[in-house]
C-alpha cells in the first residue's frame, strides 16, 4: 500500500479523535485536561453482541484507497517492515481472484476483476486456528471475536498454517523500530508472536466502533451483531446476495461480502 505522510497523519489524527467520543458525551470528564485513572471514572458503556460480524461492500471502495488499513495499523501499532517477507498486516486489500478463487472465471466482468477487496480475519464461528493452538493463546469469545493473547503465544505458527484465509502475521523481528507513530493507548507486540485483527475489541469495550469502519469515508464496512435481526449488518445482507470466503470449508466466517 502506498500512502504519503500527510494522508497517513490525517487518518491517524481522525482515528485518534474518535477516541475522545466518550468525553464529548460526558462533560464532567471532558473538563479535565489530565485524566487521572480511577477518579471520576465513569466506565463507558461497552458495545455487546451475540455474534459480531462485518459486511464489506467492495464496490464502494475507491481505487487505491487504503483508509481502513491506515486507520487500523495506526491505532494498533502495527509495524511496517517494508518487505513482504516480514510483513504484518491486519486488514488490507486483495484482488477478487485471490479472495474468491472458487467463484472466479475467465469471463468475469472487468470491474470485478480489477476490484480490490478488503480482507481481514473472518472471526470464524468454527475457527481452525483456535482448534490447533497448543496453548489456547488464540481463543474464541462468546460474542464471536477470535482473540489473541499475546502473553501466552509461543510463536509456533500452527495457527498460521491452519488459517485458510492467510489472515495472520508473525512478528519475525522486533516490531518497535518499525512503528511510525506509537498509539500510547494500545500496546505493541514483541518479536516471536503471531497477531491479527481483533475486531477492535478494546474499542468495543469502550463503546467505540472499529477503527476501519469509522475510517471508511464511503461506508463500505458495516459492523454489528449478526444475531440481531435489526442490526446494520443484517439489514445490509438481508436483501442482497452476500458471500463469505471459502464457505465450503465449514469455518463459518463472520465477514460477509456483498458483490
Amino acid at each position, binding site marked *: 500500500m502506498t500512502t504519503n505522510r500527510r494522508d497517513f497523519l490525517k487518518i491517524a489524527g481522525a482515528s485518534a479523535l474518535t477516541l475522545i467520543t466518550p468525553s464529548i458525551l460526558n462533560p464532567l470528564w471532558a473538563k479535565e485536561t*489530565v*485524566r*487521572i*485513572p*480511577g*477518579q471520576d*471514572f465513569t*466506565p463507558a458503556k461497552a458495545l455487546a453482541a451475540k455474534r459480531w460480524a462485518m459486511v464489506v461492500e467492495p464496490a464502494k471502495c475507491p481505487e487505491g484507497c487504503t483508509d481502513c488499513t491506515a486507520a487500523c495499523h495506526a491505532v494498533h*501499532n502495527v509495524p511496517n517492515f517494508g518487505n513482504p517477507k516480514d510483513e504484518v498486516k491486519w486488514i488490507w486489500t486483495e484482488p477478487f481472484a485471490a479472495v474468491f478463487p472458487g467463484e472466479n472465471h475467465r469471463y468475469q466482468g472487468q470491474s470485478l476483476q480489477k476490484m480490490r477487496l478488503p480482507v481481514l480475519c473472518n472471526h470464524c464461528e468454527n475457527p481452525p486456528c483456535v482448534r490447533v493452538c497448543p496453548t489456547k493463546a488464540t*481463543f474464541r*469469545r462468546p460474542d464471536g471475536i477470535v*482473540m489473541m*493473547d*499475546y*502473553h501466552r503465544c509461543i510463536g509456533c505458527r500452527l495457527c498460521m498454517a491452519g488459517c485458510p484465509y492467510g489472515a495472520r502475521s508473525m512478528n519475525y523481528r522486533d516490531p518497535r523500530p518499525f512503528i*511510525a*507513530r*506509537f498509539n*500510547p*493507548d*494500545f*500496546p*505493541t*507486540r*514483541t518479536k516471536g508472536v503471531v497477531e491479527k485483527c481483533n475486531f477492535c*475489541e478494546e474499542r468495543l*469495550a469502550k463503546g467505540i466502533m472499529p477503527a476501519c469502519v469509522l475510517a471508511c469515508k464511503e461506508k463500505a464496512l458495516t459492523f454489528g451483531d449478526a444475531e440481531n435481526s435489526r442490526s446494520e449488518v443484517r439489514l445490509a445482507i438481508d436483501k442482497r446476495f452476500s458471500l463469505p470466503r471459502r464457505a465450503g470449508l465449514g469455518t463459518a466466517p463472520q465477514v460477509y461480502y456483498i458483490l
Partner: protein
Amino acid sequence: MKNKKWGLIILGLAIFVIAVTFPFWHGIGKSKPVPVLSLDTPLIAAMQNKKCVEDKAFMRANHMKMLNTWRDEAVREGHRLYTTKDGRVFEKSLTGTCIQCHSNKEQFCDRCHNYVGAKPSCFDCHVIPGEVKK
C-alpha cells in the same frame, strides 16, 4: 589414600566451591543503597488525593500477581474493571492505569527491578506515553 590424581581432585573441588559460593563473597564490603522511588510525575502532582490502586505495602508485595491476574481477566475474560478495596473503579490496564500516573518508568519501576535483578518482559510491549518516539 594414595591416588595420583589427588592433586587434580582437590583443585577441581576448590574451583567448584569458589564458583558455587560466588554470590555470597562477591559483594562483600560493598553495599548498594536501597532504591528510592520517585513519584514526581505530572499526573501524580495534579492528584488531589494521592492514592494508588491499592496501598503501598500491598502493591510492593503483590503488584506482579495483580498484574498477571488483570492480564488474564481483561484479555481472556473481557472483565476490564477493577474495584479497589475502598470502592474506587479502575480499568485493568498496565498502560491505561498504572503507567498513566507512574509515567516515569526509569525513576520508578526500573529502580527496584534493577536492584533485585528482575527483568519483567511487560515493557517489551506495553508502551510508556512519555517514551513515544517520532
